[in-house]
């Protein structure tokens, strides 16, 4: 049985006293839970205990507001994540309109506006050209969330796509410089076949096992360039011998091209 997917967003929701579930159109096993950030820590704990069920997967996103309240709520969220390790696949803070959960008119992704609401035709957002527009909505006429908006956000947070590529890139440069490629007087095999790069290979395999081309297509369905750059990077790392000419420069370019197409911050 497919586990139920709970996206739990603790935020300054405009019309939510405690908790409000919002269903996802065409998805019987996916719900957005709008949880008010005004809940006291004890109430929040109770809510999370109720929402995180054994046969479910949860992403908990907490809005970073006043520091003492954020701190006490974060403790509750961390405690729930610790208690339900198998169920809570990600917990994180979000703030200042910079994170993927906020609707981006450029990428047509995200769920919330900056004013306590899910993006609907009541929201006035600036379009790609900088004009105010009421054309955006993540809700259908029944008030359900359109599945593509929910799934994109879900996939982004559960797969930590941008972070994984960024982290791999950083590990890559550390390993490459540590091995001092120039000192090898003979051609090296490819990354996957080289025992000197075991740590990097492990990180590479772990990242690309989770971030398949299919997953990236789901997350960035409006931007085919992501998949193209992903394939380019993968082909490069899979096929190019480690000390071929300009290896580091070309690898950096592939990483950069892919990351430049993936919106949002790494955290």
């Amino acid at each position, binding site marked *: 049985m497919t586990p139920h997917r709970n996206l739990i967003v603790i935020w300054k929701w405009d019309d939510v006293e405690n908790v409000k579930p919002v269903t996802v159109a065409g998805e019987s096993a996916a719900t957005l839970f709008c949880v008010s950030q005004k809940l006291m820590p004890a109430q929040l704990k109770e809510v999370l205990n109720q929402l995180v069920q054994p046969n479910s997967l949860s992403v908990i996103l907490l809005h970073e507001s006043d520091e003492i309240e954020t701190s006490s709520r974060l403790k509750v969220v961390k405690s729930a994540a610790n208690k339900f390790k198998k169920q809570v696949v990600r917990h994180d803070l979000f703030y200042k309109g910079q994170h993927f959960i906020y609707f981006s008119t450029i990428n047509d992704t995200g769920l919330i506006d900056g004013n306590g609401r899910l993006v609907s035709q009541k929201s006035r957002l600036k379009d790609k050209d900088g004009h105010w527009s009421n054309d955006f909505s993540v809700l259908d006429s029944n008030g359900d969330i359109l599945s593509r908006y929910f799934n994109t956000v879900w996939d982004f947070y559960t797969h930590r796509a941008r972070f994984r590529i960024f982290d791999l890139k950083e590990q890559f440069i550390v390993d490459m410089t540590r091995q001092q490629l120039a000192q090898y007087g003979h051609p090296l095999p490819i990354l996957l076949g080289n025992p000197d790069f075991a740590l990097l290979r492990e990180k590479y395999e772990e990242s690309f096992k989770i971030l398949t081309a299919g997953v990236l297509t789901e997350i960035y369905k409006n931007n085919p360039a992501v998949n193209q750059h992903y394939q380019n990077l993968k082909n490069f790392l899979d096929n190019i011998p480690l000390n071929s000419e300009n290896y*580091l420069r070309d*690898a*950096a370019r592939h990483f950069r091209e892919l990351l430049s197409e993936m919106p949002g911050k790494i955290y």
Partner: protein
Amino acid sequence: MDIFFLATNQSVPAYFAQHVGAKGLRMMPFLYEDGLSNCEAFVLFSPLYVNGHYVSPDSVWKKYCGQYSPEMKFLTAGFANPSTSDNCLEISDLPDDLSQFITNAKTAADVNWKPTDTGGLDMMDVLCRFFNGHGNESIMEQFSKLLRIPANIQSALNLNFPLQRIYNLYLSDGDWAGRWQVFLNRWNRYYPFFACLPFYPKFREIEKIAQKINLFFQSDEGDINLYLQIGCSEGIETIKNLLAEIAPHVEGIK
């Protein structure tokens, strides 16, 4: 010329050193204790990995160096730029003559270049949030309020009020302890990130004082003798002053 550097992982500067070594330049790890006064060139390898996060303190460092070592050559090095440009070195595309590049680099105070985004948490943003708070009081406002009680306690001590009365008047309602806790919560969340900043020694000093003051708040309430012994009033004043010294290096403080 000695080139000082700050990096999380030493293999990257070691690789870098191979490119500069032949020209009589020497890579030296930056030590906070020594400061920047004798530093002619400084390379920040960014992002750094601090407190389990990738962080980008580039703009904080540039602003700081621009003020305290304006003639110093300040450069950043990373793996995020399309190519090396201005003072931002791309490690995968180092210039053929790196030594010359460093010698010709713009100074820290030069406003005609700015560090590129290396993708980690922007530390200027983190600092700004630390100072401004999230919608409530700024940290300086918090300290102004925190200092009211010590001022009252001091006046009462000068007038030889009994200690129990001082406790009843100023500490028994727990308001002051609550205010301290608000600061401490904010501090504990942010402090681990500050290890990558040029003014980290000031933060380290704040941490030491805060831990000391906290002994008073953890003790049985009302122990005015402990309050005096620890020097809580002076400690809070010192923290406020240290924060005031750091604040001008942060952009965006309200």
